[in-house]
């Protein structure tokens, strides 16, 4: 009689509408009680075929679509695309525009990391830090709204520079904000990052070894969280990053094992401080002059292809462009950090509790529209 009794894995759908999946992603879990036996991410719910749209709009007309690839850090997405087209056409952009790009890009990086930290806390059940993070992000939204006129989908960078100059009181307001923010960030860290309960929840959980991280092509803070010191701003400098002085925080396994969730979390918290440093340097060195290189109304990049990578808050974002000397791209391919982060989840999540999977996703900082494009 006992031979007839079988235990089988139970299949559970986590998502597509689940508060901790940060968008519309579905995880098909095969569980053995509370423990995950297998987890399969099912993506594609947010697919908008942005790459195909690119083939029917003009080169400049595609810039607002890059906002929608990753709406948490759209300034950096603009940057990656514009840089690719500029490299293809050999356009030199004015120095002031380069500095403005770094300032707004790093401001956007701070706001993106604030969201990452806040949502990771919220997934763990701490709602208060999330509200603190969003409050600080609101100041950055205010600043960027003054620069470009939008709060989320900026469309500020153009091919050949930036759309409009900084407003007159921008530098003063930004310095005021940074002075306030350094204090506020320390408060957020005291509130949650150094909290013993929070550390114990995150440390030694979801460990990704450096070898695994490289094998799965993890990028950005997720890779650096595993102790690999690789940042495109240092290793393959674009724009004016080679002139600026900043450090790359890497995970050390200070509270648990190298490459655990807490390492990925603390790398982001430390990167915010580096971004503040970068913005201060740029504001001090900001030269005067033109903000836009001379570019024709209708541009036709020469025949050929190019692949350009930039360091966005979610890792390196690559734009592959293929031009056949027409007014719109022949083919455009976007490579993003969230996509590769999804592919490592099945391997890491094996043997975790369901509640720990939420922590793992929170620490990887996945943004759903970036996974699907």
């Amino acid at each position, binding site marked *: 009689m006992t031979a007839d009794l079988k235990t089988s894995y139970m299949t559970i759908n986590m998502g597509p509408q689940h508060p901790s999946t940060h968008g519309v992603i579905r995880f098909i879990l095969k569980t053995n009680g509370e423990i995950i036996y297998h987890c399969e991410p099912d993506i594609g719910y947010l697919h908008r075929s942005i790459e195909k749209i690119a083939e029917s709009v*003009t080169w400049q007309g595609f810039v*607002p679509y890059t906002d929608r690839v990753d709406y948490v850090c759209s300034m950096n997405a603009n940057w990656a695309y514009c840089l690719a087209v500029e490299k293809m056409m050999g356009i030199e952009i004015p120095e002031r525009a380069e500095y403005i790009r770094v300032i707004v890009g790093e401001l956007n990086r701070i706001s993106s990391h604030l969201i990452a930290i806040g949502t990771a806390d919220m997934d763990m059940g701490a709602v208060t830090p999330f509200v603190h993070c969003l409050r600080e992000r609101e*100041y950055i939204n205010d600043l960027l709204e*003054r620069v470009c006129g939008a709060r989320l989908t900026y*469309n500020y960078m153009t091919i050949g520079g930036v*759309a409009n100059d900084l407003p007159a009181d921008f530098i003063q307001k930004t310095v005021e904000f940074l002075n306030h923010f350094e204090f506020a960030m320390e*408060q957020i860290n005291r*509130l949650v990052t150094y*909290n013993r309960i929070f550390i114990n929840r995150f440390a030694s959980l979801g460990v990704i070894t450096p070898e695994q991280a490289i094998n799965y092509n993890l990028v950005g803070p997720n890779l650096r969280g595993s102790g690999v010191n690789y940042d495109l701003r240092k290793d393959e400098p674009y724009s004016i990053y080679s002139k600026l002085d900043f450090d790359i925080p890497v995970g050390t396994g200070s509270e648990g094992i190298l490459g655990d969730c807490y390492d990925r979390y603390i790398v982001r918290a430390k990167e915010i401080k580096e971004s503040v440093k970068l913005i201060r340097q740029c504001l001090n060195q900001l030269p005067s002059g033109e903000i836009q290189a001379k570019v024709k*109304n209708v541009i036709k990049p020469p025949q050929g292809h190019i692949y350009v990578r930039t360091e966005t808050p979610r890792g390196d974002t690559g734009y592959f462009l293929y031009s056949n000397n027409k007014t719109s791209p022949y083919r455009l391919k976007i490579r993003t950090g969230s996509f590769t982060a999804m592919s490592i989840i099945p391997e890491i999540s094996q043997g975790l509790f369901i509640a720990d999977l939420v922590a793992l996703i929170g620490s990887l900082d996945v943004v759903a529209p970036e996974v699907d494009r």
Partner: protein
Amino acid sequence: MSEITTQSKDRYFNNLVNGVKTVFEGMSITLASFFTRPVTVQYPEADISTDQTIQDNYKGPLSGMPPNYRGILNVDMSICTACTLCMKACPIDCIYLETVKCEKVTVIGKDGNEENKVRTCSIFKIDIGKCMFCGLCTIPCKPGSIYHTNRFEMNTQSLDKLVLSFVDDDSRQQILLKGMELDAIAEAKKKEKQALADKKAAEEQAVSKKTDKEKEPSTTDDKDNQ
């Protein structure tokens, strides 16, 4: 064995003390925010459209909407030169316009530059339901007639009402009539010109035929010499 247990015991109690300490630290921060000003804006009560208006009902640190906010599009038809550049710049084709001829006038754009206007719009429609407020249409507009306003509230019950038309029906009739009139005049002028040109061409042909006849023997002479 006993060493390990004392070590883990120590760690256990350290963690416990540390946990309680950090919780109280967090609580102190939460308590401190009771005495700070709220950041949130009570939106419908507080008019957030400019820095001045926001101050009436809100004392927090955030500022109002900036003057360059990219809200709902508006068109100043008096300075529009009907160049159709905005329609071409729009990546999602939410701007539709048709142009007809008009009497030549000079308009002064928002930046003070003069622009010649020889055509005018008989239809100028913007589908705000489609518009993604990217601002690409405002960049090529030389007189600055198409611009973003600070408005962002536009709730309606039907999608048709989201299509903004900047030329009303009465003036469209007049513009079309005027355009037809001007077209007719231009057509007549063209015909006149054509007739004149034909006449001239015929005369020139006659002249050139004569000269050709005179020239023919000379060319043969040249060839012979060679």
